């Protein structure tokens, strides 16, 4: 199983690493430093995660889900906003694509179900029509024969036979409809039914993937404030020279000059847009 962690680890380590100079290390008394290649780190973490996942489940799909969850947690631990944002974007795109596919599948499923219902209705209607016409024909023939045989015995016989004929016809039709509802589907109906079942399974699977993508996004959103909102400044208020610094007056003057030159630039920008001459000093900042 490919571990999705491995593709981004090297970049993450590089992003998180703080560069320092050899000169500084030397100054701090370091003579030798242990060096672990970033590719080795990547390999170690990737293998560790993969091993744990494979041991914890026999289901590769479930393993992949666990790996992705581990990736999200790993990103959070690294606190790399760029990588987290990229992953969030990827997940959102994946979620959008899954939702789109799911909608299409649901539409297909609905359409397949309707087709199947139509097929069954059509089949039932055709069978009932055929049975009804056959029944009518048979009953007419039997009643014709009965009338010929018993019609002369009493004037009430034809009316009684007509009354019984209607009841028998209705009962037989009801019995037929009960039987037909238990008839095995035809080949085309079985095919349509199989398609519906397949689509239902695909919908279930996609719904599972979508739920997982949503859970991962939720997990990413549940980062601590510091991770989601950046790193707080050490200052709660505007600083400015406190006056306790050495060379306070010089600093104050230099900063006033920097400010003034910036102000001149703003004025020049404004003047430029009106076609007025610019301040020569502004270029010194």
């Amino acid at each position, binding site marked *: 199983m490919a571990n999705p962690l491995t593709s981004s680890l090297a970049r993450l380590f590089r992003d998180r690493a703080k560069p320092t100079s050899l000169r500084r290390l030397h100054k701090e008394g370091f003579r030798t430093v242990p060096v672990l290649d970033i590719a080795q780190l990547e390999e170690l973490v990737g293998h560790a995660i993969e091993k744990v996942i494979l041991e914890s489940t026999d289901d590769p799909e479930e393993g992949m889900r666990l790996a992705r969850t581990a990736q999200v947690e790993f990103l959070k631990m690294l606190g790399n906003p760029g990588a987290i944002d990229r992953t969030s974007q990827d997940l959102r795109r994946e979620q959008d694509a899954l939702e789109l596919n799911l909608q299409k599948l649901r539409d297909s499923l609905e359409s397949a179900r309707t087709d199947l219902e139509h097929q069954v209705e059509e089949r039932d209607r055709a069978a009932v029509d055929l049975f009804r016409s056959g029944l009518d024909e048979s009953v007419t023939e039997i009643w014709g024969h009965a009338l010929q045989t018993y019609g002369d015995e009493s004037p009430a016989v034809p009316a009684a036979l007509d009354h019984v004929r209607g009841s028998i016809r209705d009962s037989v039709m009801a019995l037929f409809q009960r039987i037909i509802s238990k008839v095995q589907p035809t080949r085309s109906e079985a095919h349509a039914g199989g398609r519906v079942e397949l689509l239902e399974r695909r919908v279930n699977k996609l719904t599972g993937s979508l739920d997982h993508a949503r859970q991962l996004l939720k997990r990413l959103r549940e980062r601590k404030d510091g991770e989601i909102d950046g790193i707080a400044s050490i200052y709660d208020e505007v600083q400015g020279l406190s006056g306790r610094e050495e*060379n306070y007056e010089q600093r104050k003057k230099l900063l006033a000059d920097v400010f003034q030159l910036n102000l001149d630039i703003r004025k020049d920008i404004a003047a430029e847009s009106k076609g007025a001459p610019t301040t020569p000093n502004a270029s010194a900042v």
Partner: protein
Amino acid sequence: MSKKDSALVEDKPEAPVESKDGGKVRETPDKPEGVLYVGIDLGTSRTSVAASNGVRETVASYVGYPKDVVSRKALKVDKLFGDEALEKRLMLDLYRPLERGVIKFSDTDNPDSPEAKANSRAAADLVRKAVALAKPRPDELVYAVIGCPAEGSIKNKKAILDAAREVVDSAMICSEPFAVAYGLDLFFDTLVIDIGAGTTDLCRMHGTMPAPEDQITLNTAGDHIDSVMMENLKKACPGAQFTVHKIREIKEKFAYVGNQRDPINVEFPVEGKPTNFEVSEVVKESCRSIVPPLVDALGKLISTFDPDFQSKLKNNVLLGGGGSQITGLGEALESEMHAILGEGKVTTVEEPIYAGANGALKTAHDMPKEYWEQLR
């Protein structure tokens, strides 16, 4: 400075208290919001950022946008920065928006040309990226000082400010060498050399804001070394194929001047076959090409300074910027200064990549509240 403007500078509200040395000082003003100060060194080659939340980051000054829908789909992002952009350049419209320290085409008469607009957009995205690298909290005010070349034009400074103002609450710019000097508290009789990729800025610090005559900007910087190395390699490695990116890679790994060091073996394709070349002399000579113009410019700044302080200035040269990482450059400059100017002492900054950003951060931190608010 007009009277009104002077008033803006000098009549700011202050509550004087006694400092430890007895001088009148101003109390730190109160303000409820959190404030993130950001110092940005917007360089031709690298953009570095230092912030008051402890973040220090650097990114190569490249911005790339997917060339087409297919690239966009493959990359899954709308823009890439730094080395990542460089690695995937075949799928990108790649911009290095700064050239010789200024935004490309910002100085032309046609700022509305497609090239100017594209580079301005890339520069704005680069500044946005630099601020994002500082990881600001959404509820904090972001005050940024951006270091830019000493001799940048007004048009270019406007372009940088325009880019910054979209993403920060208030922005100021200052000259890069000034930022380096301010960050290291070197205000008096110091000569700062800031060797970037596009320009080398020299600045004479004498306790006041450097005037135009205190600053010289040279084009003999990192990109110049690349060009020289390209020509030298063409001669030294016949048939070899290489790009400017490969040359930069070699320079960043092996750049040196001075005494012979270990052989530098690199591999270039020759008619499709990887071939090994030893290029130590080429690297050395190419890197050395910036030394004479640098010492010449130092001579100009020194010779026009107060004669009583010229010696002090010569012996207080501060070397910073990415170019200061060239092994042996400080010694080579000293040696050339001895030969041309009679004496010289060069100190290399400890953190060349961050010296400008650190100085800009310190400038931002020390800047009074009223100034920030007027430039919002």
